[in-house]
């Protein structure tokens, strides 16, 4: 079916680009899945799909928040540091039990989100600068709270990390649920509509009387909270709090997933389905190269190629 569609549109470059931008990411996922099925031994197994899904879950959750930030014509670079802060807070509060610890971690993420949002909405700092500041400060704070890796022995956390319902790991269930919630928020709530309007044309949104500041703060609070949840899940999976390395370069992976998924960096549009597919695409790409024992630098190059393709498609379409 894909062949047929492709054949028809080669004549029309514009439509091809539109298709590439909207569905390219899904096609990419399908191609990688097929290629792996043929070329990678033991790829078609429930166990393997489970592994891939579990590994992609934290990236996906962070990418959901990033999609909101990018949709508002911003970006959140602090997500990786929020994950680190989250893992430190878990370790610090685990004495009260896993629920309280997870709550503390999420509150930490919300606080960082508030700081980001306040800097952007009230002080008027560029999102990239504001969140860069919090990226540095967040990691620093995480290391002050917990200077080194610490094991997490709590059975509740361990169960969260490795347990499942009918063979579907909790991590995957949570990520899927969050993706549905965020998609619903973007499509069906006032907040979602206002977010898109603000991302598309801020002067128009302001003159239309939209609560621009409030919406921006909520965007960054959501992004912070989602990153913190990703931090909780990553901690549970690792059964350790590792603030030094947890979440490093996470912001890049998340931005990549969002952009590859067809959400334009210029804002005004949020594609949650595409973001999910984008995260999966990058996971599969990495996994393919690892399973075939290709040099790690290839992964980075392959990611770069995918990003360039995605941005190219978006840019070409934008010009028309």
């Amino acid at each position, binding site marked *: 079916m894909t062949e047929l569609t492709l054949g028809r549109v080669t004549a029309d470059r514009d439509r091809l680009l539109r298709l590439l931008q909207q569905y390219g990411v899904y096609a990419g996922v399908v191609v990688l899945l097929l290629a792996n099925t043929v070329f990678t031994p033991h790829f078609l197994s429930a166990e393997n799909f489970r592994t891939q899904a579990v590994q992609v879950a934290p990236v996906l959750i962070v990418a959901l928040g990033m999609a909101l930030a990018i949709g508002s014509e911003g970006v959140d670079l602090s997500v990786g540091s929020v994950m680190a802060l989250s893992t430190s807070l878990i370790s610090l509060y685990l004495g009260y039990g896993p629920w309280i610890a997870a709550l503390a971690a999420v509150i930490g993420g919300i606080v960082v989100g508030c700081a980001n949002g306040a800097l952007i909405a009230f002080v008027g700092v560029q999102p990239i600068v504001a969140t860069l500041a919090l990226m540095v400060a967040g990691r620093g704070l995480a290391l002050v709270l917990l200077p080194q890796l610490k094991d997490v022995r709590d059975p509740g956390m361990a169960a969260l990390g490795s347990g499942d319902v009918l063979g579907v790991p909790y991590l995957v269930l949570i990520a899927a649920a969050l993706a549905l919630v965020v998609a619903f928020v973007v499509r069906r709530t006032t907040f979602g509509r206002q977010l898109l*309007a603000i991302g598309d*044309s801020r002067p*128009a949104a*302001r003159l239309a009387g939209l609560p621009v500041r409030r919406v921006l703060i909520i965007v960054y609070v959501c992004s912070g909270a989602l990153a913190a949840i990703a931090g909780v899940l990553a901690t549970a999976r690792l059964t350790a709090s590792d603030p030094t390395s947890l979440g490093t370069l996470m912001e890049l992976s998340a931005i990549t997933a969002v952009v590859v998924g067809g959400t334009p960096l210029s804002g005004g549009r949020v594609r949650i389905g595409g973001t999910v597919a984008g995260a999966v695409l990058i996971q599969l790409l990495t996994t393919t190269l690892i399973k075939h024992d290709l040099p790690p630098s290839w992964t980075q190059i392959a990611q770069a190629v995918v990003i360039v393709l995605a941005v190219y498609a978006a840019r070409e379409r934008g010009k028309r």
Partner: protein
Amino acid sequence: MLSVSGLTKTFPGVRALSGVDFTARAGEVHALIGENGAGKSTLIKVLTGVHRPDEGEVTYDGSPVRFATPLQAQHAGISTIYQEVNLVPLMSVARNLFLGREPRGPLGLIDFRRMHREADAALRELGVRVDVRRPLRELGVGVQQMVALARAVSVDARVVIMDEPTSSLEPREVRTLFRVIRMLRERGIAVIYVSHRLDELYEICDAVTVLRDGRVVHTGRMAELERLRLVALMLGREIGEVQGEGLTKFSGGHDAEAEPVLRAEELTVRHELHGVSLSVRPGEVVGLGGLLGSGRSETAKAIAGALPTDSGRVLVAGVPVRPGSTPAAIRAGISLLPEDRKAEGIVPGLSVRENIALAALPGLSRFGLVDEGRIDRIVDTFMKRLRIKAAGPHQKVGELSGGNQQKVLLARWLAMQPKVLLLDEPTRGIDVGAKAEVQKLIDELADDGLGVLLISSDTEELIEGSDRVVVLKDGVVVEELTGDAVTEDRLMRAIATAPAGTGDPDD
């Protein structure tokens, strides 16, 4: 000194200049005036080498020239001072003055002492005393303008083009500027002066060229051109021309007895408005008249809370509105259709439906969830009522024609059930058919009891559409035309003859 003849320049879809002849002579200040879109800026850009003419010839110092780049024009001695100062704010005054031609010492290093000395001397000559080592951005706009001017003069310019140089100056600074301009004139420099402030033009300019729709409609001595005639030329109307009804779709004549629904009192915005007061009654269309830069859009924005005011207040149905807040103004029932429809009005990437529902969204939601059914009904109602032509409610607004975009914006505000509509150039850039439709709509809305404040550069539209016209000049209300006095003639007279503001209104 610098002249053009038969100049024609076409942009895709627009003929910006056609057959323009213009001559700037040495030792003469030449006013270049015209309303928006008359072709002033295009002409300046051709003179300074930004654009190349399609046809026609530029003659400089007696021989034909073609400047390929602005830099070439600069080197030839043509300097331009723009409205926004284009200098480097972080560098010192002296460095800005000598940017790119700093005096060098024996090692090729900048000779700072000499540079500071010369910069100081150059500014003193213009009557400006500042520490030339200070970064430019620490100084006021007026001084920055002086630095730009000093720079223009010090590069041995022979032609100086000034584009609205006084728009952000204090009266005292304007005096200094004029002194400098006179000095330039005495030195035999040709000055081309672009401004909308009539009083300034008559004070400083020797010659005048009026542009309209890309053509020269008048050129001659400034002193020989009557004010009223000048205004008429700019607006493209004849004095005393009898107006027949029916050229526009306005019916005119609304109820003028009721209590005002909107009252603006003494609105003041630094450099823009000086104590503007006006009122609009339900069912009344009040026009805001005046030339470009007279403060019409600023008045509308100040009323809508989109431009922070320094003093003054706005009342809707007798209740004061919190100033400086768009949401508060909207809640009070004030809706603004902004002048720059594309940048400030529509959200181009969203659909017709989302654009219409945008402002009313909180009212169309329950617990933050959008009530799609109600939106569909409202969108459907307004798309029919305003006859919005789109492929459907889900087409992107950015893809619609200007007229339909304007209707979508109208629908957005009508969905809020406003008490007052502020319409800033509602028919600009709209094709004739849609224009008539929009005009008819405005009429209908007023009939329905809305108070409408109408801003239009189309004098005919303004006069026919309005029950009353408040005339602004340099940010001051100079006259209010009512009843039979609402004529183009009276409007032009008000613009032309009224004295400028009351000296030094703010501070």
